[in-house]
């Protein structure tokens, strides 16, 4: 490796990199975007395949016969639900016991930090009911979970009916090697969170729950079922979980394999697969599917009840029945057979699902993009940050090399001293703003409600936006109090720090949640790469605001609606944006989603540093 140790060639390399810095950066950015868009192109992706031997070669027969009876149970359940006005606890306990299960209940209460206007809940009180089917001659060490949420409105009754029907059918079979837990959870995710915390005897979100009475060892896999009509046209698979975690790809493969076998239309992101990958429409379709997955994953919220299992290293997915009034209809018996087949294969597992990928994107159910293929797209964007940092480093180093005489030795020290202060102050102040953005909205909601005519939820969201905007005005004056005048050296050091900080932040984020890292990189990297104090202030400021994390969120809302084929007008989009913010804060406090603290405490302060550079005088 003479390249680095030879000073001449090193100099040549750095000068090449500094001279061609801007073109290389532009090329990297475009290449990153192009790479990402190319991921959806079918010839570039891999076909899915079953990696787990225990699920692959062993064929199972599906014989579930009682779909009609399950629907009758669902109607009975609906009647009892109406009568009680909520979860019909007694009826469910009795019904499960009659099916030969060991039945237990768990009640929980949770007060939200502020009212959830989407779901109209604030003080949540509910009961989870679960029945354990004990596998014969098994020592209670392993379990599978089938869950169905009991929602307050009239939806999802069929899921509960089918769950009870499957319980009855499963009870009379002898081949079970793992206990099966049938769970009906109230208040969807909150109930699920309470149950999982109870099962694992942890308390991470301040939930109030009664301890569980019955357990069945370590849970190997879980499926959550959502059905709202007697007849469905297709089944949708939901994979995205908390903090962008995904279940093992084999679970998706299993679902797809059984849909193929039984002949059920299956979708992912609500999109059917198309055969024509070589046409423009086919490609656009794949891009849309993949973009939806990226946006959902980036949001960091659980997109179904399965999402909370992933924290406990339990592979889980939601299966959602969709009735879109197509010709092709599927009845409850078929769905029951599909679930039976999936459970029998999961029952055959000797180890936890671990053979296949945990990091992937799916442009369709048959194709996937693994981490090795999508990471270069992010890598190209991150390279820009490093190249700009290198450029700055060289620029900062050049004058120091010039002053070789003894006279110059005193000056760099003083510059250095001043430099540390002038860098440290904006860093500290912008992080304090971040802390304010993280804590104040929830803390100050009562004060806000007193003084302004808004509801609690609006108060929280508007406070957050206000602090976010106030942050723009605050910190860019700070260095003047320290040094009076910002030096050329000063902003370069600050920018170097900001660039490296951003590179580390985005790198770590992308490792955990690629989608979030990539989306943030798309907007933040150009801003970070270009900003200097010597640009036209007004124009650059506008560009900077448009590229800020808050605006990225706004674009994402619009793009998501567009991709879901439910476009919204500007005011609607704005309202949606506000509710997304409140949901983000709620997800953080209810389930421990990390997107809100990440944005408020780290990404936003980092962007403020860049903002600071723009107004450096």
């Amino acid at each position, binding site marked *: 490796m003479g390249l680095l140790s030879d000073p001449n060639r090193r100099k040549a390399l750095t000068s090449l990199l500094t001279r061609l810095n801007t073109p290389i950066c532009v090329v990297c950015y475009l290449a990153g975007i192009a790479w990402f868009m190319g991921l959806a192109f079918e010839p570039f992706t891999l076909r899915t395949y079953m990696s787990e031997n225990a699920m692959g070669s062993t064929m199972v027969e599906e014989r579930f016969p009682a779909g009609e009876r399950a629907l009758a149970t669902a109607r009975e359940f609906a009647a009892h639900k109406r009568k009680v006005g909520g979860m019909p606890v007694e009826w469910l306990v009795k019904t499960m016991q009659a099916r030969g299960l060991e039945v237990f209940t768990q009640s929980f209460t949770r007060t939200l930090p502020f009212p959830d206007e989407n779901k109209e809940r604030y003080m949540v009180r509910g009961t989870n009911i679960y029945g354990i089917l004990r596998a014969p001659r098994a020592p209670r060490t392993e379990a599978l979970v089938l869950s169905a949420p009991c929602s307050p409105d009239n939806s999802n009754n069929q899921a509960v009916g089918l769950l009870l029907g499957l319980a009855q059918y499963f009870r*009379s079979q*002898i081949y079970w090697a793992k206990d099966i837990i049938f769970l009906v959870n109230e208040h969807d995710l909150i109930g699920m969170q309470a149950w999982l915390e109870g099962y694992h005897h942890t308390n991470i979100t301040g939930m109030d729950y009664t301890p569980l009475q019955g357990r069945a060892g370590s849970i190997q896999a879980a499926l959550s079922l959502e059905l709202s009509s007697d007849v469905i046209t297709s089944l949708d698979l939901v994979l995205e979980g908390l903090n962008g975690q995904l279940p093992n790809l084999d679970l998706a493969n299993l679902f797809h394999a059984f849909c193929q076998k039984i002949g059920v239309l299956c979708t992912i992101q609500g999109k059917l697969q198309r055969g024509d990958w070589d046409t423009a429409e086919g490609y656009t379709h794949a891009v849309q599917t993949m973009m939806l997955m990226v946006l959902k994953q980036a949001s960091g919220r659980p997109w179904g009840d399965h999402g909370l299992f992933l924290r406990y290293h339990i592979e889980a997915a939601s299966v959602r029945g969709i009735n879109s009034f197509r010709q092709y209809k599927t009845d409850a018996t078929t769905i029951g057979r599909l679930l039976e087949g999936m459970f029998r294969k999961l029952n055959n597992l000797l180890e936890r699902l671990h053979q296949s990928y945990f990091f992937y994107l799916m442009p369709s159910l048959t194709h996937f993009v693994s981490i090795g293929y999508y990471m270069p797209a992010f890598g190209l964007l991150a390279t820009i940050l490093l190249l700009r940092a290198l450029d700055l480093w060289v620029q900062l180093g050049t004058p120091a090399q010039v002053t070789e005489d003894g006279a110059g030795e005193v000056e760099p020290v003083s510059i250095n001293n001043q430099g540390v202060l002038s860098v440290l102050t904006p860093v500290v102040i912008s992080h304090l703003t971040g802390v304010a953005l993280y804590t104040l909205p929830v803390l100050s909601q009562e004060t806000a409600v007193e003084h302004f005519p808004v509801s609690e939820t609006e108060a929280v969201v508007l406070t957050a936006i206000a602090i976010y905007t106030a942050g723009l005005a605050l910190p860019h004056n700070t260095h003047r109090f320290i040094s009076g005048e910002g030096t050329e050296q000063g902003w370069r050091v600050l920018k170097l720090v900001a660039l490296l900080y951003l590179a580390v932040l985005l790198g770590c984020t992308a490792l955990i949640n690629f989608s979030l890292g990539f989306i943030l990189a798309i907007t933040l990297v150009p801003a970070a790469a270009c900003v200097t104090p010597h640009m036209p202030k007004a124009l650059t400021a506008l560009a900077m605001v448009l590229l800020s994390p808050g605006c990225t969120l706004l674009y994402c809302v619009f793009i998501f609606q567009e991709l879901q084929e439910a476009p919204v007008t500007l005011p609607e989009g704005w309202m949606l944006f506000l509710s997304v913010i409140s949901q983000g804060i709620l997800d953080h406090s209810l389930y421990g989603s990390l997107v809100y603290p990440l944005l408020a405490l780290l990404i936003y302060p980092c962007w403020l540093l860049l903002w600071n550079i723009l107004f450096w005088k």
Partner: protein
Amino acid sequence: MAAVGVFALAALVLSCKCDSVEKPSDATGAGTGSEAERSGPAAASAGSEAPGGGAGAAVSLPDSCEEELLIRPLHSGDIYASFQFRTLWDTDFLHQGKKVSHYRLFPKSLGQVLSKFSVRELHISFTQGYWRTMQWGQPIVPSPPGAELWVWFHNTVADVDGNWKELTNVLSGIFCASLNFIDSTNTVQPSASFKPLGLGNATDHRFLRYATLPREIVCTENLTPWKKLLPCGSKAGLAVLMKSEKLFHSSFHSQAVHIRPVCKDWQCSSTAWELRQTLNVVFDLYTSGQGKKEWSLFKMFSRTLTEACPLASSSKVYVDVTDNPEGELFDLSPATSVLNTAVVLGDRRTYSVYDLTQKETFGQLRSLNLVLRWKGESGDMLRPLLHAERYVAGFGLQTGEIHTLIYNNHPYRAFPVLLLDSVPWYLRLYIHTLTVTSKTRENKPSYIHYQPSKDRLRPHLLEMLVQLPPHSVTEVTVQFERALLKWTEYTPDPNHGFYVGSSVISALVPSVVAMDTNNTQERPLFSSFFPTKEESSYFVRVYTEPLLVNLPTPDFSMPYNVICLTCTVVAVGYGSFYNLLTRTFQVEEPSQPLAKRLANVIRRIRGVPLL
């Protein structure tokens, strides 16, 4: 003599037939050989000593055997069947110098093991499934899931560990099980929980070894050697019911062998060796009976009884009819007038008794097929006074917490229990986090025996004496850290997880009815397993479920990637850094013109300073 010979011949034929159903591989060789070996001396002694033959002859002989089957309809609708076979023999295996070589009823393979390894008491059980105490009540003979082995050695044994190692390997061969996986990493020496069940007052627990293999799968291959230890094999008597395809079509299956010294007779003037073989099965009527609650011997075992084992001095079937005093709950046919009352596990139970040695029992058809038809719903079961459960709390692969919950359901009596926990070394227990709480208050154990683990050598052993307040739940928690194993120490299926054996809870539970302490009178075998010393309490052992714990597991499919990555990092990163660090940089002198160099040479010769 001729009759016995015919029997032996018939047994040979039968054994071929039976074994070929269960296990085709050893149907001819081992099966028939051992059978002939056993029936040979039996025929000889029966011929010479007791020409009359039959049951009366056993009295005068030094050994005798009994068999019985207990059937109990459980409140959950399941059927609990418990077989007990007992062989008594007053010989001295441990006597030095004198070799016991003449075997009749006692299996030779076990007798040789006893004398070779100086075993004083041996208890081994193989269990598939978990006993559901809350649905089924207390079992007659408790056992943990998997295999359990505990042995008291005679106190003359010098090298206990060596004997133990060899013994486990021999038993592994006898029972066709993986007992050879018992080594020092899963063997403990409990100080209080496992007292000898037989005669003798051994207290020095250096001669005790206890080990469990929670992962052991029990199947027909373990049942066949177990059946071969029976005096009649599976050819006659109750053992004909043991068809493996039925026994393993159940909710719970447990087979055990217990060997201990007991009193020879009621005066206890001399001791005898007792070999007790037990087999416990719970049949699930829901899955096999299409929801109908009705059972018969034929339905459960796909056989009926036609005769007693000719070698047995007593052969009885007991059916628990306690819940059905007036016959309003179920119908039992054929009806019997013989009733027996026994106090079992603190409860006075009534049994219908069918004596297979009596001709009348089999009736006209020459076969006994017990049929029980349920008429009404059974009421709620009395909650068992003591039960326990255990689970792992927490998530992630770094730390965790073991919770053990012990329930005392007695309404007003507190009683102490002994808790034994043996945890493998790769869960590093933080013993300072040990807490025992009952009714939200700290409950200080009056006795704690803790032996820390040594990595790769021995497990943790934790024994505690805890007083359970009446009507309470006592929670014992201890935190642990998951160790990183060396890559060769992982099992072939590391992502399945690692097992932690059951906790053992031993207790003297206060009894509602007076226990029968009079050991002299004739009692059913199942009520005499644990010796009762006082009237007010009875001994219960409860096992919790084993735990399945995931350890941090490397991705074993990735060694190639890891090698590539490591090599690249070493080559590029380390190489260039090493280069940079070791190379010295010098400012290169521009080369001097030739004239100057010449001048310098001349100057050096002259001794003046260089230019």
